[in-house]
Structure formats: C-alpha cells, structure tokens
C-alpha cells in the first residue's frame, strides 16, 4: 500500500478569482474520476496491448494471411475485441462524466462566476474582443474533447461557463500532473525561457496562439513581468475567463485578444517568441499551413517558434502505439488529431519558410510542486497521449 501512487486531492487545486467553488461531493467526483483514469491507464490499458498481441493480431493474420500493416487494420481488428471495447467504452464514459461533473459545478454558480469575471474584466484594455471573428469550421464541426459548447459557446452575452468548465476539470484527465493551477506546461515553458534568457535569448514580445484559458502562458508572464505578451484565441468566453483568471493571479502583462491565427493584423517581425501549446492538432489541414506561415511572417529575425504537442506518429512508431494514440481522433472528438500527427511538422514548417537547419525537437514535461503533485517526468505509465510530457517542435529564424 505504501508504494501505491495516489493522486492529490482536488482540495489542492488552486483557487484563483474566477475558479468555480466546489462543494464536498463535487470534489469527491473529481477525486473519483482522477483515480479511475489512473486505474484505466495503469491497470486496464496494459491488457489492451496483451489482447492485441495474444488474440486480435493472430486472428487478423489468420484471416488475411498477414499481420496488420496499417493503423486502420489494427483498428479494424481491435474494434472487434471485447477487452478493447470495454476499455474504450469506459474511457469515453470518463470523458462524458468529467464534462457533466464540471458543468454541473459551474452552472449552478454561473451567475456568480460571470459577475466575478465581469468585475475583473470591466474597462480593461488587456481584454480585446472582436465580434467579427468567426468560429472556424475546425472548431465548430464537433465539440472538441466532448466538451459541450466547445471553447466558444455563450449561454448569454458575457458568459464564461465553457472556460470555467474547461479549467476546473483539467485536474481529472492528468490525475493532478498539471499542478496546482493546471499550468505545469506553462511552468515548464517559463523554466525553459529562464534558461534561454541566461543564454542570451531575451524576447521582448511573445505571442501565444490558441491560448484558451491562459493556463500555459500565465506562468511565463509571471516569470517575465516586463515582457509584453499577446495571447490570441477565437473563443470570446475562454478569453474573458483567461483575462479574469490572469488578472486575479496578479498578471497584467498579457493582452488577451480575440483573433484567428490564420491571419493576424500585427506587422511582420512583431514577435521574438511564438508559442502554440496543444493547439495545432485542433486545427485542420488547410488552416495549419496558414498558421505556420503567419508565425514565419510575425517572427522577428533571431526569434524562436515553439509548437508543443504529443509526439508525431512517424514511421518508426509501432502501429499499435499509433493506433492507441489515435483513440482520441475517433472517440474523443479530436477529428484532426490523427491527420496532424501523421504530418512531418518540420516539413510543414520548412514549407512555411523556416530554415530546416534551424529546427530541433525539445522534450518538455509539466513542472509542478512535487511535494503535492505527481511529476509527469517520473511517471512510467504509458497512457498513449494523455500524460503532460510533450515534444516541442522548435524553429529559429
């Protein structure tokens, strides 16, 4: 029992100024879901791998005269496997339960949350909304990761409920590995930038694309309070929530702006550092090259662009691992996930005008207060895509 990993209690999650206030049973629900996700990843998921090797793959080979040769063939034979079906069904249910748990917590106090957000946002020029920004098809086609209302739906003008729901449940999927404010990615970025700063790379202006609730950029703003940061997203509710959240945490150097990253109105070379964090996989094959071209145009000479994602599939990744990592594409409303992870991102960045010789991959894991929260870097459970340990695709100009 001593050795068993137990995620921190939801009580440890940080309470900023617009965070929904969870009662006993709401915290218990998140505690249960965090532990259930941990169980599925560590105890059930290995059985899925065994089911593939021991019966699904041999069965396929028997019928077809060869082992599965594509991800699609792995998928076809696994979808008929009872153990995989049970794991998949329960995993999908955990996503849906997490959404209902978050929404019930948020919506019962939505007027209070909206009032708090409004008070923090009122007459603040760091929040720049623009009604003319249209929600692109790749955001509206389905509700991304089964999040009703996605990032952009407002229940009334000024509503922030989708932002509050997204924020309050980030804890669940990673079992607390994203840290107190679910900002372990941002903390890792801030640490990286501190090292860069020491080495002489000192960006004056930073752009965060697809910022949602701002959890990945606020730690950077806190570490560099004199740096000017612009964070863009297409969703007004998440931006309202992000600005209020950041402000309540004492951050005043981020401008949250409603804009589509395929075409931004900043001048060429406006930024020294451009970041996307778990964003590119939520775009589309048409939008992604446009966004990369914009980063090339907006980046100043000597600047760096960082794209933080789960690893690309690539030919050297085993088919079974590709198939498992592709689960979210079909089962968690992430329709561009598979296509995006099949791409050679460096080739895409080269097509956008970046120099192939100035590209590199960086490993990054969420940085958390390890006295309370589990460190992704020390976790050896293979969960095929949920763990906050990323590949960063870096290009210098």
């Amino acid at each position: 029992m001593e050795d068993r990993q137990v995620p921190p209690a939801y009580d440890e999650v940080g309470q900023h100024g617009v965070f929904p206030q969870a009662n006993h049973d709401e915290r218990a629900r998140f505690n249960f879901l965090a532990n259930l996700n941990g169980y599925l990843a560590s105890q059930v998921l290995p059985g899925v791998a065994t089911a593939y090797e021991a019966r699904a793959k041999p069965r396929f080979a028997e019928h077809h005269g060869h082992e599965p040769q594509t991800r699609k063939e792995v998928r076809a034979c696994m979808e008929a496997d009872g153990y995989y079906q049970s794991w998949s069904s329960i995993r999908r249910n955990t996503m849906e339960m997490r959404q209902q748990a978050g929404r019930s917590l948020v919506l019962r106090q939505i007027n209070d949350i909206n009032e708090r957000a409004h008070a923090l946002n009122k007459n603040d020029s760091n929040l720049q909304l623009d009604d003319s920004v249209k929600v692109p098809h790749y955001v509206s086609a389905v509700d991304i990761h089964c999040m009703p209302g996605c990032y952009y739906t407002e229940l009334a003008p000024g509503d922030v409920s989708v932002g509050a729901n997204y924020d309050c449940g980030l804890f669940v999927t990673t079992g607390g590995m994203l840290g107190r404010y679910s900002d372990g990615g941002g903390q890792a970025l801030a640490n990286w930038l501190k090292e860069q700063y020491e080495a002489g790379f000192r960006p004056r202006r930073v752009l965060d694309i697809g910022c949602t609730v701002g959890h990945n950029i606020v730690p950077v703003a806190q570490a560099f309070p004199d740096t000017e940061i612009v964070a863009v997203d297409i969703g007004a509710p998440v931006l309202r929530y992000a600005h209020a959240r950041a402000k309540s945490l004492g951050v005043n150097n981020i401008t949250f702006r409603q804009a589509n990253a395929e075409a931004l109105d900043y001048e060429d070379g406006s930024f020294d550092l451009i970041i996307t964090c778990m964003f590119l996989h939520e775009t589309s094959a048409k939008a992604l090259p446009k966004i990369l071209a914009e980063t090339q145009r907006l980046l100043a000479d000597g600047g760096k662009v960082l794209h933080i994602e789960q690893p690309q599939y690539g030919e050297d990744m085993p088919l079974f691992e590709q198939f498992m990592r592709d689960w979210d594409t079909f089962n968690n409303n992430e329709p561009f996930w598979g296509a995006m992870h099949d791409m050679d991102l460096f080739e895409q960045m080269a097509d956008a005008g970046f120099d192939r010789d100035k590209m590199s991959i960086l490993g990054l894991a969420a940085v958390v207060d390890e006295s309370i929260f589990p460190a992704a870097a020390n976790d050896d459970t293979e969960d095929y895509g949920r763990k906050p340990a990323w590949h960063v695709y870096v290009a210098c100009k």
Partner: protein
Amino acid sequence: MTDAAVTLDIDAIAEAGRKAKGKRPQFFEMEESERLMGILMAVVEELAVTRERLDTVERLLEASGGLNREAIDSFHPSAEQARERGLMHQEYIARVMRVLQQEREALEEAQRRGPDKPLEQVSEELGNS
C-alpha cells in the same frame, strides 16, 4: 462593456448533462450494452462520492469526540442486530436482482399455464368483450 454581468436563468441540471456536438461512437456490438455501461459507470461514480462523504462524516464525528472510528471496525452486532442487518441485505439484494427474479417467475408461469399473452392481445380482447 456594460456595467453589470448578464444574469442567466438556466436549468443547471439539464444543462450540465448536455450532449457534446458530434456522433457518439458505439463500442459494443449491441447499443443496449452501451447504455448499460453509461448508467453503470455513473452509479459507480455516485457510490464513490457517497463513500467519500461517509468517510468525511466519520472523520468529523471522530474529531468532535462523537465517534471512535476504530469502534466501527471492531463493532460486532448482537444476534438480534445481526438478524436485522441480514434482512437489510436480503431486502437490498431482492431489489437489485428483481429483473432476474421476475424472469424466473415468467419461466415458471409459462411452464404451468403457457406463456403470458402479449399485451396487444389482452388489449384487443378487452376492447372486444
């Protein structure tokens, strides 16, 4: 920006359970299994919540001196109490297993006097007599 936030008047219970846009995948061969798994996992979740709440109650009671939690684990019922609790289990099991118990009744009835008539047939008979 206006001076006050817009006040929402929503049914938070109904809104919380809204479906996400996008077709839900089917994992099992029968859609009934899909439904049952969904309901079962929600019940599992709520039981976990209840257990955590009970644990909180016990700890609070203990902290206030009203309860020694070790006394719960070392509690042994008297014969009468044990019987009451046995009946409690039996009543609970009967509720949970009702569907199997009634299916058995139907099998036995069918053996005795033939299968139940479909309700459509009973309805038609009563409408015509």
